[in-house]
């Protein structure tokens, strides 16, 4: 025992003497130069990825995540989550330095939030990834990608976040669920098989030429398939929010207050039961549904891209639309599948 400690101490002393560094950095030995594109791109991007720590408390809440530096002034983009609390949120940079973060307003439609650290306290200059490239085509199915993030809080202090490798599996616009609750997110998602685990979210998805294409979401369930998906928000969708809070350029987007829509469809449903398939019970005369030609006993299958497998899903999907919008309806009558466009009206109530 004693001998082992002595040997270890001696080895450490030698290591310290050789590297001339303190104990904390003794194991951050110089790495070899990158040989491949994957290695090179990870090397280049790692200094822009930070670890984010926040308020903990509940066992089910991970008090860690990842962020991406988006400005030299100290803006850090991360995923909005419970642990992000005022005066409790810390950002750990590539070099291991810890910085208290100020909270900027979140972007609820994307579920992201900007943090701000003081650049004067940073040793050297921040290396922002900005702006996310908006060159088209941004990504395509089957493209190789690298995902960076602090999965399972494996990286502490100056340890580097984890890199995972995979392909772009595809693009999805699907209804989403997180644990047992619905997620309000309307845009496209990039699906990938580069592993996305707790903590990896808030990190980024990059092509092998170093383009930032996606911002890792937390693990969500896709309602279309009822599977957990590894997904990222396309980074170009973040541009308006980043522009507003980093560059002060407010894009004139009026917050649209969604009014409930009216279709004139009455589904066959009994209260208190699990929601049955969306069979039409009645159609109000001179309503959008009547103009479409829906009839009692038709089974509604899909609204635009969204599957409708129950009466509840019919209502949930309809809530995504606004009066005046046209929705493509797919329904089954007898042994035929029919489709048509329905112009939604405003709910009179």
């Amino acid at each position, binding site marked *: 025992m004693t001998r082992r400690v002595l040997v270890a101490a001696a080895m450490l002393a030698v290591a310290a003497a050789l590297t001339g560094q303190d104990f904390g950095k003794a194991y951050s030995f110089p790495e070899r130069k990158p040989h491949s594109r994957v290695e090179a791109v990870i090397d280049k991007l790692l200094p822009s990825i930070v670890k984010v720590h926040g308020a903990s408390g509940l066992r089910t809440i991970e008090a860690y995540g990842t962020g991406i530096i988006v400005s030299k002034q100290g803006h850090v983009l991360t995923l909005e989550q419970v642990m992000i609390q005022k005066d409790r949120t810390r950002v750990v940079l590539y070099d291991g330095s810890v910085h208290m973060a100020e909270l900027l307003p979140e972007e609820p439609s994307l579920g992201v939030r900007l943090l701000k650290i003081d650049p004067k306290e940073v040793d050297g200059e921040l290396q922002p990834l900005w702006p996310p490239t908006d060159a088209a085509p941004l990504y395509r*199915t089957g493209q190789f990608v690298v995902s960076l993030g602090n999965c399972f809080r494996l990286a502490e202090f100056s340890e580097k976040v984890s890199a995972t490798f995979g392909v772009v599996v595809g*693009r999805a616009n699907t209804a989403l669920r997180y644990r047992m609750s619905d997620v309000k997110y309307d845009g496209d998602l990039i699906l990938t098989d580069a592993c996305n685990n707790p903590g990896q979210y808030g990190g980024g998805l990059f092509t092998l030429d170093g383009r930032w294409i996606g911002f890792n979401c937390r693990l969500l369930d*896709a309602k279309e*398939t009822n*599977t957990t998906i590894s997904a990222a928000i396309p980074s170009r969708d973040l541009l308006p929010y980043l522009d507003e809070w980093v560059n002060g350029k407010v894009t004139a987007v009026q917050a649209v207050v969604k009014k409930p829509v009216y279709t004139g469809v009455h589904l066959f449903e009994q209260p208190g039961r699990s929601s049955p398939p969306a069979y039409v019970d009645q159609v109000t005369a001179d309503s959008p549904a009547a103009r479409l030609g829906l009839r009692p006993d038709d089974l509604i299958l899909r609204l635009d891209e969204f599957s409708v497998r129950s009466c509840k899903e019919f209502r949930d999907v309809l809530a995504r639309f606004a009066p005046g919008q046209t929705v493509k309806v797919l329904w089954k009558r007898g042994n*035929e599948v029919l489709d048509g466009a329905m112009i939604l009206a405003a709910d009179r109530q």
Partner: protein
Amino acid sequence: MRTLVRQCWPLLVMTLTTALRAQQADPDEFVALEPVLRAALQKAAPFTVTIETVGGARRVLKESDGANDGQGDTPPKPTPPPQTPPQPAPDDGKDKKKPQLQLQQPGFHQNQGRTTGVVLTADGWILVSRFALNFDPSTITVTLADGRTLPAVRKGEDTSRGIALVKIAATGLTPAEFVPPPDVKVGQWAFALGRTFGVDEPTVHIGIVSAVRRQFGRALQIDAYTSPANYGGPVVDVLGRVLGIAVPLSPAGRDAGVEWYDSGIGFAATIADIPELIDRMQHGEVLHRGWLGVTSETKYLGPGAKLMAVPATGVAAKAGLHKGDIIQEIDGVPVANSFHLQMLVSSHMGGDAIALKVRQASDDAPVDMTVILADTPFEERQQKKDAELPPSFPLPEKK
């Protein structure tokens, strides 16, 4: 300059050698796979279709409830006459002890989602995963690559491969090209395609063939992620030819075997080698793995397999097998031991006739006999009931 070259020549040589060596082993070589993958994707896109289901029995049982769907003691069925749907099992009274059905929160709502299918023929036969029809949905639709959605009729299935057939009224479809299993090699690229998120292009997961001839010669194992999002979808090679149909088949779990989704252990049922089974499925037959129904002595190390138990009602007893008999050959293949017997029998389908050479306990001269295999009973297909895995749900059989 000359002096410089003279002084530095060892360095120059070294740099050149390093450059050459780097050229020989290019770590970026794999990037060339990307266009290959794109081409395979485009080749496979026209025959990769979306399957959607609505309705059906939503029964979710706990394992402890003995959820055998009343099919546990299906008596062995004699040779099913081809082109006739199998008869429902007669009620043998065991069903009366009905287990208390207890609803529980499932890990995910199985089958209540989109899955994928593959166009088998130009005239509207579509291969799907049995998983898609898990709860006997009242409505099945197929959305083709061109965006048309058509109602589908459920036809036959093969429970041993986890595949099923549905038929749509369409012509002029682009059918898939299937690779014969002998042409598949472990280590070759395997791309698992799905079409579930309703966009123009199929989704893709990449991997390699991990093993061949799994599930007694019925499936390939792949490490590309498979999940309900791409079950039923094609697993294609670099040329976009179909190696197999992605299916949940984990042998450790229950029939559906979905516990292993996205785990890197995926299965692709092979198709090119079973034209006669496809034909039977097109006639609505439900096919199962073959079942001899005997127990062999594992302590008897061979040659041959010594029978420990031969149930009196089974096909083996009817054919004249007894306890203590030693099966020496099946279809002319010498049986090495009891595991070999299992392999030889299980590679057959129910209803297949197999020729046995048996040394009967009472006699020294081997006897030839023919056994028509039964279908593997439902609870046997579920395998380990207390597997250390989250519970999945029994598949109601098509009646």
